[in-house]
């Protein structure tokens, strides 16, 4: 589904992601772990097409298309979803209005009919239960005045509503209490289908107790330095990131 080959990404002229390779197949969940500043968000943002993150080398194929040639909105319409580490506030625009616009623009791009307000509302209310949010959540402005946990749940709500083909979750688990974490995990598990894939960017192993990854990668200084099965997450939890640093340092 997603094939990243030799990808390098720079921010403000500084190379952050270096020669990264990653292969994601339909039905898989990949965990990308790594210490702060290792380039996890940079990778996520570059895949979504953020203009501040400049791709300086490599190729990315998504569903057989050249992802890097697509505009951010086209990537989204092709089913790529990014749950932001720091969700953005849009004052005055209700969650419902925002999601209605998103749903309908994505549908239009796929040649589907526009959903009317009633249809959208029905769909939203259904998904609200998943994130255990009250109906009033829909009339609140997008992320404005939300607590950290509410923002993260809102990302999951949007993901559930938009039903992406490839979801990239950037530390959606950070800063959540155990109940909220379970809700997020549940949202991810619901999305898990043979024709979907998920990249779970995380700093901690905690969420992986609820969402079982097929592959775990360690990102260090912009490179994937280690890939293995879910057992790697536990090892990282036990031993921290320092031993990786030592290992990588020894190789370099």
């Amino acid at each position, binding site marked *: 589904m997603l094939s990243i080959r030799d990808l390098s990404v720079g921010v403000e002229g500084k190379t952050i992601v270096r020669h990264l390779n990653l292969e994601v197949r339909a039905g898989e969940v990949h965990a990308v772990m790594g210490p702060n500043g290792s380039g996890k968000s940079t990778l996520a943002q570059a895949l979504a097409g953020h*203009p501040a993150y400049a791709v300086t080398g490599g190729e990315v194929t998504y569903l057989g298309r050249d992802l890097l040639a697509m505009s*951010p909105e086209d990537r989204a319409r092709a089913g790529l979803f990014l749950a932001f580490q720091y969700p*953005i506030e849009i004052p005055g625009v209700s969650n419902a209005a925002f999601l209605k616009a*998103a749903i309908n*623009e994505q549908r239009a791009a796929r040649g589907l009919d526009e959903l009317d307000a009633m249809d959208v509302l029905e769909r939203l209310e259904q998904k609200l239960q998943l994130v255990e949010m009250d109906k009033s959540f829909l009339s609140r402005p997008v992320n404005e005045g939300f607590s950290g946990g509410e923002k993260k749940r809102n990302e999951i709500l949007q993901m559930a509503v938009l039903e992406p083909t490839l979801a990239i979750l950037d530390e959606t688990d950070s800063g959540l209490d155990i109940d909220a974490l379970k809700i997020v995990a549940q949202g991810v598990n619901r999305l898990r289908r043979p024709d979907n894939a998920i990249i779970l960017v995380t700093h901690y192993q905690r969420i992986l107790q609820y969402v079982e990854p097929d592959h775990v990668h360690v990102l260090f200084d912009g490179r994937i330095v280690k890939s293995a099965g879910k057992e790697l997450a536990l090892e990282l939890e036990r031993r921290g990131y320092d031993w990786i640093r030592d290992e990588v340092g020894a190789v370099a």
Partner: protein
Amino acid sequence: MTTPTKTLEALATRDYKWGFVSDIEADTLPPGLNEDVIRLISAKKAEPEFMLDWRLRAYRHWSKLERQAGEPKWANVTYPPIDYQKIVYYSAPKRQGEGPASLDEIDPKLLETFEKLGIPLGEQKRLAGVAVDAVFDSVSVATTFKEKLAELGIIFCSFSEAVQNHPDLVQKYLGSVVPYTDNFYAALNSAVFSDGSFCYIPRGVRCPMELSTYFRINAAGSGQFERTLIVAEEGSYVSYLEGCTAPMRDENQLHAAVVELVAQEGAQIKYSTVQNWYAGDAEGRGGIFNFVTKRGKCAGRGARISWTQVETGSAITWKYPSVILQADDSIGEFYSVALTANRQQADTGTKMLHIGKNTRSTIISKGISAGRGNNTYRGLVRILPRAANARNYTQCDSLLLGDRCGAHTFPYIEVGNASSIAEHEASTSKISDEQLFYCKQRGLSGDNAVSMIINGFCKEVFKNLPMEFAVEATKLLGVSLEGSIG
């Protein structure tokens, strides 16, 4: 990659789809202004003596102002001097016979024009729930639902008709809120105004439909000088809407209107405007000079007047819908969205004059500047010493799109007693690249993302508009931004 800056720079290319000209035979006076012109306008309308007298007094006052100081210079706008002798002060579509025309006597081209503007006047097609007075250049051509409203004692007609049929009411209230001595343009309007709308809501009546006037400038070289007077008697309620468009022309055209509102005890007037006069082109050629005086008086206890305006058009807007809170417990509100793109300039705001005790006022102003637009909020809150326990809340927010536009805020606040409070909040923001990217990541196009963010910014104002108008206003901002992303 499109950034909001680039996106909105491209606002310069926005389309104006109301810019067509109708080919209609007109009865037009030659350009120029003197006492004879005023006598002629008054005679064309077969006005009673008191009207001509009032016009002449206004004219003499205006002439004096013109000789002494000329037009007011304090507004934060720049434009070449206006030659008042080059303006046409009266232009009306020709028609047969006297008195108000019935629908089948109206030139079909006129009906067609209004239909094209989305204001069908014909019996079958007219807008449900909205009574419309359609003003074309200097005269009102039709007023819908007049008879139905009359059953409730509501008078809704053109100003000219009101002068003929209800001279007592006109004489009593004309100039009672905006005297002709008020300012330069109010004096000019009082001298030459040719038509407009008149509404009278009798005691205790809740007007069952929206009343609305649609102003259309068509003739070249003419100015539009209309006057609206709304009187709401004790305990009555009315919601009034005003819309306007004009053809695209390279020369500037002057629109100097006066609106007066009178709300008696416990009455409520909601006055909403969607102003969409032609704004001129990207270089600042052409467009309407919109120099307007709007004021309401809360004359009776507990009266309430709300101004809601969405100003997207005009080359220059100079306008301060105000409320005189004369009676105790009265309420004044001002909700405004002003958009300036290209070379548009707006100097707009409000005045809240607190005279009565326990009077309340709320001001919410949202200024949006794009391109090389220049947007100024100018507001005065004056709480007199005798206005005990008065309250004002003012919020002025500016949204800048791009870095060649300007936003300015001039709030003047005078609190004359210790029991009163005036609060003021202001903010300036930009649409961030992060917001735009977030929307795009959810599949929104850049255009839609920008309109959505702008609509969110304007929400507190839009929610005060009647439903049909809110949709219209949203569409207008959408149209203004259409095609602005490459």
